[in-house]
Structures are given as structure tokens and as C-alpha cells.
């Protein structure tokens, strides 16, 4: 499948998997398909191309009523779960990699970065007083020289 057709096909399906709601953008508006085509290795891209082919041509699929699009994807998920999983995982990963999506998550109160580095996160240092609730006089280990009972009945 040509890269532009693959990207277009992913976008159409991605909009069904993660439909735009309120302030949440549609995957196709973020060009998730093009990102995946640029990113995926051949082995995963081939699996996704196969999944899309089973759903029908992109323009034909896009022209279907919404209920039919959902039904075709549900059939793929039911009949070929391993292939569907590669498609769904890839779309979810690519969607939540989008700066616009991260901005929306932040707007909802999440302290979250586009990528783990270079910023990382600030966390409160651990205080030893936090273990005050642990009874440190109660030892939860057994000395080796106290072992010797036969426990074979347990197994």
C-alpha cells in the first residue's frame, strides 16, 4: 500500500476509534496516520495495511454510515484480535503523542509532558517519617538457622 493511502486509511479508522468529542481533536485533524506511516517499522506497517484492506478501500470505508464503520471495525476486532490489537495500539500511542492532545490533558489538570525527557517531573523527597506507621519491631524475615521444619504437606 502506498504511504499516502496507508496514512489516509489509518486516519479514517482512527476517527472511529477515537471520535472527536468537545475539545478533544479528531485523529485525522492531527494527521495521526502520516505520523504512524513515518514511524512504524515495516513489520507493523504491513500488519496495519492488512487490517485496513480487510475494512475496504479508505474512501469507500469513509463513505459508509457511522454504524457500518463501527460494525466493520468490531468485526475485525472479533475475527482477528491480534491484527486489531496492533492497529488499536498504534493509533492510541500516536494520538496521545500529539502536542494538541497533551495540551488538552493539561487543561484537564494533568501534570504531563509530551515526552519523559528532558524535563522529567518534580516529586516530593521521601521523608523517613513516612514509615512511622510500620512496626519495625516485628521482623518479617526468618533466620536461616530457624528453618528446618518439613513443609512437604503443603506441596
Amino acid at each position, binding site marked *: 500500500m502506498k504511504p499516502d493511502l496507508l496514512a489516509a486509511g489509518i486516519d479514517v479508522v482512527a476517527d*472511529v*476509534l*477515537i*471520535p472527536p468529542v468537545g475539545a*478533544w481533536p479528531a485523529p485525522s485533524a492531527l494527521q495521526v496516520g502520516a*505520523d504512524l506511516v513515518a*514511524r512504524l*517499522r515495516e*513489520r507493523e506497517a504491513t500488519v496495519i495495511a492488512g487490517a485496513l484492506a480487510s475494512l475496504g478501500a479508505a474512501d469507500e470505508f469513509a463513505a459508509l454510515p457511522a454504524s457500518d464503520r463501527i460494525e466493520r*471495525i468490531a468485526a475485525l476486532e472479533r475475527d482477528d484480535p491480534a491484527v486489531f490489537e496492533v492497529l*488499536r*495500539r*498504534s493509533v*492510541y*500511542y*500516536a494520538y*496521545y*503523542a*500529539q*502536542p494538541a*492532545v*497533551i495540551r488538552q*490533558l493539561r487543561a484537564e*489538570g*494533568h*501534570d*504531563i509532558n*509530551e*515526552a*519523559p*525527557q*528532558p*524535563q*522529567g*517531573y518534580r*516529586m*516530593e*523527597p*521521601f521523608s*523517613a517519617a*513516612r*514509615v512511622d*506507621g*510500620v*512496626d*519495625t*519491631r*516485628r521482623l*518479617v*524475615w*526468618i533466620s*536461616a538457622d530457624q*528453618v*528446618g*521444619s*518439613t*513443609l512437604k*504437606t*503443603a*506441596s
Partner: protein
Amino acid sequence: MNTPHELPSVPVLIIGAGMAGGAIACTLAEAGVAVTCLEQGHWVAGGSRPHGDRFYELERRFGWSTSPNVRAWDEDYPIGTDAVQPLMFNEVGGSTAIYTAAWPRFRPTDFVKEQEHGRSQDWPFSYDDLSPFYAENDRSMGVSGLDGDPAFPPHDPYPNPALPIGRRGDAFARGCEKLGWHWWPFPMAVNSREYRGRAACNYCGDCQSGCSIEALAGSHNTYWPRALAAGADLRTNARVVRIESDENGRVTGAVYVDGATGERYFQPAERTVLCANGIGTPRLMLASASPSHPNGLGNSTDLVGRNLMFHGLAIVEGWTEEILEPHKGVICAAAYSAEFAETNPERGFVNGFTLLCSGMNGPGYQANGSHSLNVAPWGEGHHEWMSSHLNRGMAILVQTEDLPIPTNRVTLDPELVDSDGVPAPFIHYRLDDNDERLLEYACGKAVEVLEAAGAVEVKVNRFFGPNGDYMPPAWHLMGTAPLGDDPATSVIDPDHQVWDAPGLYVCDGSSMPTGGAVNPTSTIGAMALRCATRILVHLGKEVPEWAA
């Protein structure tokens, strides 16, 4: 196949630059021994990892997968299996270059399981014997932890203070305290402050792709820089395809392929130390059969490759109504409970388990079901589900001790080969009935603590495959060439020398007669330091002060 070029002999040849290989090379080189190490992979620079890439979660799933079968880099070899997807990284540092750096010790009873219940072998040395090596290894790796854990005998202080446990750790601690269970901050080989030239962790939460800022310790950024400074010869892109032995059964060195040229070399050695992990080590031993070792090196008793242990693993996740920020901080583990780590026969099984309060990574990973396959629905309802779940959960890694079972084993795959024509390993693994009961009980306790911590939804992932068989992500590779006092029941002697293949030592996860109920790398490193000091004794050299 071209004839190998024979190289000048070396005193000590190490195969594999992972945890054990690095610790042994460093100890020997700093003692003045000429050491050569053959490593099939390369140096992976911190900056080449995907942590700064907004597609880091996609990369971690595929191109940076911890499974060589998915990752499929040139230096990886395929693994045939009907059971598992093993974690393995074939680069300098070995799997410590991609692991999560959880750093617990084994417990005193882990060394005497034969005395305890009779279904495992005792180690030929004790916890107390290994304790000084644990302490030195902790210092070398820069372990962060809180002293005084009542789940262990007192030991040398950790070199760095405990890491933050965050909101998820705090919720876990509240749950344990409510139930009256033990909990404690988990020791991690991750810097809570700058240590020996490596940066402090900035809690980015993406430990599973290694660490791009080198705050997470592996042998590649601790032992190997020291080993090289002391003169060790590390040859990368050098895949060992066979270990040679003479007509008397003595191991004489190894044949390797230079990945850059395809040329084969025979590296003779007075002593060869095999450190290729719990799968790679038995694979090489079995693939190196000769007239003097017709069943494979060290395999006259048919023990090589048997008794494979991975730990019984499950992940139980819970979601609360509060934000727990499981995407921040070390992924495994903020805190843990050892309440059930010792055998209690009233439970109906031998051995025990630990519960580790772990993270959940970023939003893409959480949408894809995190560790428990609680996948965000597609279609209508997706965003609503994310709103009620994202960053409100935590994971409990359930880690149970599995028994050494002879039929759980590494053999040579009859068809699959690597890119140099060496047979791939084949893995067969099933849980014993005892271990099934243990894992089921442990999952129940994980649910209990999550509910005590305020979880309103809980999901258990027992890692059942499509046919209902237990198919875990095998993170810990152990037991396939174990230590022992008796050549009839072990592959290597107390000094790590293969009983029936003089000149060959084995030291890695394969050497462990039992696997404990915790992550094994700390114990592998301590064992490797002890092994190195035994080699120094055999060479007539002085041992380091910390081991005297």
C-alpha cells in the same frame, strides 16, 4: 563457513558484558588481571534512547521492546517458545541496559530451601556469606534505599537516600497500614542524588527503555567504565558461536564472529567465564557439544537448561477516585510489601511472594490497558473512560517464587537459528500446581491491598494466553546451570566452576539454585563479585579489601 583465525591466548575470557560479566571484568581488571570480554552487542548511548521523543510509547512497544523477538535488532537472536516472551537485551550492560533496576536482596531463607521444604536445592553458601558482596555491589551501583527495613537482617547502609514514593506509593502505604501489613520504600539502583558522576533521577517515569540520563545504574555505566579504565579489553559486535573444549574435556576458549566483517576468530583462554544470562548460557553450553562433551558442555548429568525459573508473575491494577500520578517516578517500584515473603504452610503451598507498587507509564500506555489489559474502549465513550482512569491508578506487581521444575527448560530449537547459524534456544515453561496456588493467593492479596488503598475498580492480569496457559513476560531468567555442592544435582561448584568442564566458569542468573520472590539482579551482581574473588584466589592474587 570460514576457518576461525586463531588469536593469542588470554588469561581470562568473559562471554557477555551484562551484570555479571561487567562486575567480574571490573573486579579482575582492577586486581591487575588481563581480562578480555566478548559481547555480541554494542554500546547504546543514553541519548539514542527514545525518552526525548514524543512517540516514546510507540517506540517502547515495538523498536525498543524488551523482547528480542519483537525488537529484532541485528545483534538479537530469536527465541523459540511455547510459553513466554523473555526480557533480554543483547548490548553492553546486557539486560541492565533496559531493566527497571529494582534492587532487593534475597532473604536468608532463600539460600536454604531444601532444608525448608525439600522441593529446591540449598545454595552452597549462605546469605551471610554473600552479604559483604551485596554491600559492595550496592555501593558500585549507587543504590537508593531506606535503612532499617524489618524484612531483612541489618546490613551496610545504602549509599543514597530513598527515592520519592509519590502519590501512588503513599496510597499503597496507606493500604498496607490499614491491613497491618509490612511495607517499605523499595531499594532501587537509581540515583536519588548525583552519585559517582551519574545524574540524579528526574522521575520521568520511562525506566523500561533504559535511562537516557544514566541515573539508572547498569553495568554499562558503573562497572564497565571502571573495567576499561583498569585495562580490560571489551570487544563489541563479537558474537560467540561456540565454546571449544579439548579431548580431555578442558575448555580452551571461544569462537566468535566479528559482526563488522563476518570473520570468525578463535580466542584461546586459560579460563573462560560464561555470563550470557539464564537462557543464553545454557544455549551456548548445549550448542558447544564436542567428542569430550557429547551432550553439551557440563551436561553429563543432563541438568544444563533444566529447572528454568522466571518467577510466577501477575499484575493487579486498581483505579481510585484520586489522581495518583503513576506516570511519575521509578516505574518499579516506589514501595513494596514483604508481608507474605516467607513460607507459611497454613496457606497450602510452599514459598512466598512480594507485592511491588509500580507505575503505569504515560497516557498512550494507559489507554492501551497499562499492565493489566484494562483497555480504554474505542469509539463513543473513549474520552469519558480516559477521564475517569487516566493517572488515577497504580499497579501491583505480584512476584512469587517458582519452584525449579526439571521439565521447565531451555533446549536448542530444532529449526530456528540466529543470523550466524547457531541454533536458537527453545523455552518450555509451565507453573507447578504449588506455584499456581501461590500465585492465585498472591493475586488475592494484591486485590486486598488495592481496595484498602481506595481502589474502586481492580483488574487482574494473570498472563493467560489464548489457550488458557500461563504465558508471562519472563523478566528474570534463572536456574539453568545451578550452583551446588554435589555434581549429581548441580552444574557448577561453589566457586562457579563447571564440574565436568575444567577451565569454564558460569556466573549469571543460570547459577541460581532458587529464585527468591524478588528481582534477581542485585543477587546476580553480588554473586558475580564473589565469583570474581574466587577466580582471583585461583589465580593466586589478593582479593579486594571489601571481600577479605
